[in-house]
């Protein structure tokens, strides 16, 4: 993947496929700790223990019956390349938490990329899912909870042109503000 935001998008798709109706994403860039990390937590169907292990090491399981997924192994490789790593914990019937850590200043760390575009696409495509997105850059942070938007909008769809344009600007303004000292 060219950008970390694409890994984030990809990992959130796993939560969606798992039937989650509540997904939280916490993204932190901490220059003091020289760490970029994100954590995605969902209330989807979860995975049994053996599955967690095989997902983390897809090429040692020797499974041939099903195409092996790429998303998690790609994320793991990208994180390890920067001196970081990922952790995955899951409970069947309860949900899954995945966390990835990257060396912030490591030369091999992909740029974060377009977080506003990533969130816009996913929030408007899956409006029945509650997303809680927090992005922190050192001391600055913002949080978007789609439940608050839904409470105000009532029956009006997130994909209404006016709402979509508003959301696009809202996300872009808030993302930009995080990097202004």
């Amino acid at each position, binding site marked *: 993947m060219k950008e970390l935001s694409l890994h984030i*998008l990809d990992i959130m798709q796993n939560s969606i496929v798992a039937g989650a109706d509540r997904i939280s994403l916490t993204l932190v860039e901490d220059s003091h700790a020289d760490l970029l990390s994100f954590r995605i937590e969902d209330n989807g169907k979860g995975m049994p223990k053996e599955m967690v292990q095989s997902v983390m090491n897809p090429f040692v399981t020797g499974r041939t019956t099903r195409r092996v997924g*790429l*998303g998690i192994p790609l994320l793991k490789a990208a994180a390890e390349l920067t001196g970081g790593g990922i952790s995955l914990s899951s409970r069947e019937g309860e949900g899954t938490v995945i966390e990835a850590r990257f060396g912030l200043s490591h030369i091999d760390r992909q740029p974060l990329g*377009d977080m506003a575009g990533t969130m816009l696409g996913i929030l*408007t495509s899956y409006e029945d899912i509650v997303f809680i997105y927090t992005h922190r850059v050192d001391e600055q942070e913002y949080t978007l909870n789609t439940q608050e*938007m839904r409470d105000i909008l*009532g029956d009006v769809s997130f994909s209404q042109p006016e709402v*979509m344009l508003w959301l696009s600007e809202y996300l872009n303004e808030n993302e930009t503000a995080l990097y202004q000292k």
Partner: protein
Amino acid sequence: MKSLADLEAIRKKTLDQVTLRKDEDSVRIVVGMATCGIAAGARPVMNAFMEEVAKRGLENVTITQTGCIGMCRLEPIVEIMVPGKEKVTYVKMSPEKAARVVAEHIVNGNVVAEYTVGAAE
């Protein structure tokens, strides 16, 4: 800065103008968003569709995502469903191609043949 308070005004305005639309009458744009699609550039394609649809104020168009469509080497793949017409599959899409598909196919009803899966094979 935009704030959540703006949404109240948007809600009032939209409820005034929009008569409830029926889903079966709407054009559907479906973007493949599995790992293969995302790696190939599906996100900017999806956002380009959203932007074009929003800019033109097209009310009866819905944009959704789907998983792997099964032709990874032709990603980003986009399917367009117009009620009463056969589904059209566009392959190797880009934001520029997306803008053209909205203008020619969705607004004017002319399939952009050169971007379709038929032309690619």
